[in-house]
């Protein structure tokens, strides 16, 4: 009977499952250890971890190849997530072996994300690894898998442009600001209105260490509220004319039906600016700023369509990076599989024997010309005997585990590491 183990994943993600389904199947970080332990009570499973984010829930296990893994995992989900409706099982994907490993690497690299190449997922994957490691549910196979996953994720970040360029309207506005100004930290910004995207843009500007951030809104309390969150200064609408003179960057995000700023209002600001550019971002629909403002010298006005255009372009550029990213994923999958191939009893025994034999030969050479030929023959025989005696017990022990059992893999891995045995070069 085959007693070896393999890596499996069962899960669902944003591609097929709508948010109503995904939310019935999410696991909170603090409850995951309990569920991992519950999984491992079944001795079908040797190792496990759960990755649960708002876009996906995936259960990875190292399980016996002879067991009905998919069924067991589905039953586990139905038992632990009663809100999950049984017929949504159609939305699951179930992958095994190399396919499961590749899937994890692609997820970590951001290739499977809703926004291609987004950076948070690698952190979420690391957190899932951390939880599993602390809960003691990660053994030899998974721990090494974690290392390779993180390497794959980091390599895709640093060696491709998969994560580059703004892909949200708010970030596109900041990116555009960086094309006009060298350094945002000595500029002041003004947010008019409290629309969601406007707030997000202001938040990004704050992260980029913008100088002063003024916030104004028709409902003053809302401006105060936002100012507290964003470390800004709330001002009443009637103070707008004075503040306008102090700012270099204006974000419009109100629900007003009329223009908040007209061409003449902005034109009046220019004499105070001494050649410094003024950047207006109009995120509101209907628009807050008169489009004619863009005709003024050294004033840049961009609306939501312009920003969308930047986002689309950057997304296209990210998509062009996918083949390079997939190649890196393939390489790391191969590296992991190569490592796994070394975890076999017979090649390890052969390598161990060769290692010791090489040491023996090196030491013998030192004495070849110091002793008589007869004495040298004796030395050879004695050392040969010693090596054999030393090897006997470890070999017997290793052979006991010639079945792919996770405990055995751990021992093989330890032996390989202790004696620094190279990977097979086949």
């Amino acid at each position: 009977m085959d007693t070896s183990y393999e890596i499996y994943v069962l899960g669902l993600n944003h591609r097929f499952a709508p948010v109503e389904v995904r939310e019935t199947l999410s696991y909170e970080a603090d409850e995951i250890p309990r569920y991992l332990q519950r999984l491992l009570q079944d001795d079908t499973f040797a190792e496990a971890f759960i990755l649960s984010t708002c876009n996906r829930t995936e259960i990875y296990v190292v399980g016996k190849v002879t067991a009905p893994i998919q069924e067991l995992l589905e039953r586990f989900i139905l038992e632990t997530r009663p809100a999950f409706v049984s017929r949504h099982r159609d939305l699951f994907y179930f992958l095994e072996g190399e396919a499961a490993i590749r899937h994890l690497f692609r997820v970590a690299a951001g290739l499977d994300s809703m926004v291609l190449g987004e950076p948070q997922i690698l952190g979420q994957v690391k957190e899932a690894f951390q939880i599993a490691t602390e809960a003691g549910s990660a053994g030899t196979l998974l721990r090494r898998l974690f290392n390779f996953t993180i390497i794959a994720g980091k390599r895709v970040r640093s060696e491709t442009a998969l994560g580059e360029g703004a892909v949200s309207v708010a970030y596109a506005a900041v990116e555009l600001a960086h094309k006009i100004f060298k350094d945002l930290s000595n500029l002041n910004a003004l947010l008019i209105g409290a629309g969601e995207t406007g707030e997000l843009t202001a938040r990004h500007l704050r992260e980029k260490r913008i100088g002063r951030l003024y916030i104004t809104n028709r409902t003053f309390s809302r401006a105060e509220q936002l100012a507290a969150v964003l470390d800004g200064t709330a001002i009443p609408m009637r103070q707008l004319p004075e503040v306008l003179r102090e700012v270099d960057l204006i974000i419009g995000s109100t629900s007003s039906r009329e223009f908040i700023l007209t061409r003449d209002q902005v034109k009046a600001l220019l004499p105070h600016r001494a050649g410094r550019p003024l950047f207006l971002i109009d995120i509101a629909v209907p628009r807050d700023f008169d489009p004619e403002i863009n005709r003024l010298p050294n004033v840049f006005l961009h609306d939501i369509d312009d920003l969308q255009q930047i986002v689309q372009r950057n997304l296209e550029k990210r998509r062009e990076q996918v083949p390079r990213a997939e190649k890196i994923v393939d390489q790391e999958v191969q590296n992991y599989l190569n490592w796994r191939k070394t975890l076999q009893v017979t090649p390890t025994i052969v390598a161990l024997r060769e290692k010791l034999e090489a040491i023996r030969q090196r030491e013998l050479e030192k004495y070849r010309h110091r002793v008589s030929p007869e004495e040298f023959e004796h030395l050879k025989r004695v050392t040969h005997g010693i090596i054999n005696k030393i090897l006997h017990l470890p070999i017997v022990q290793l052979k006991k585990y010639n079945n792919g059992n996770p405990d055995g893999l751990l021992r093989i891995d330890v032996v390989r590491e202790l004696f620094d045995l190279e990977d097979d070069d086949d």
Partner: protein
Amino acid sequence: MDFLISFLNTVLPILYFTATYLYALYFFREEEFAARYMTRFLRFTAGLHFFEVFLRGIYYRHYPLANLYEAATVLALAITLIYLYIEYRIQVKTTGYFILVFVFFLQLFSSAFISFGRGIPEILQSPFFIFHTTAAILGYSALAISAMYGIMYLLLFHDIKSSRFGVIYSRLPSLEVLSEMNIKAAILGFSFLTVAILLGGVWSYMLFDKLFNPDPKIIIALITWLVYGLVILGSKKLGWTGKRVAFLSLMGFGIILFSMIAMNLFLNSFHVFR
């Protein structure tokens, strides 16, 4: 030796073309391979170029700025060296393409028409000549660089204003950086030009007993000097916008190009390179 010098003279435009091509690959296609080698390649080219100019000076026994074509090749070298310094300082490599296109054509022009020989007029052996022309060449190369950054500024300005987010938008540094380089290079060039004009005046006084000659080239140099003086004053004190400064610095450089080429070809005055 003749062979070595004319060989290097032939190779230089090819090397500058290759460097320009590498910088173009980096600018337009973000080619990793180009990014890795282009700066090293340009440094190597500049080193070889310096060696060639040095060799020419030693071998033909004159300060290698004796005619228009020698001036062009030294100008190309000086622009390259100043550019390499800027690249090192601001750690931005995307602007190199714009600078090097100009350098390549300058070197091509020089290599095609340059002729070697001894027998430089005695007047061109004076130390005044050396300092006057060196200051002028350094000034002109800084002004050329200023003009190139001016062009980049105007291109990016136009693209941002009209919401065209293409390769210019995604690859060039910010308008503020471009404008800064535009003005800094103009100030540097203006300073060297001032020195060159002063030295020229003194030299002229010693030779002809008068500070000022009503020579077309001198008149144009003075106009250029005034234009750049205005550019600097405008940007530092009068709050001119980056666009106006960029535009005027381009105009100033247009005048220089005109004085360097047209006058040497069509006018006959004591001030023309032979």
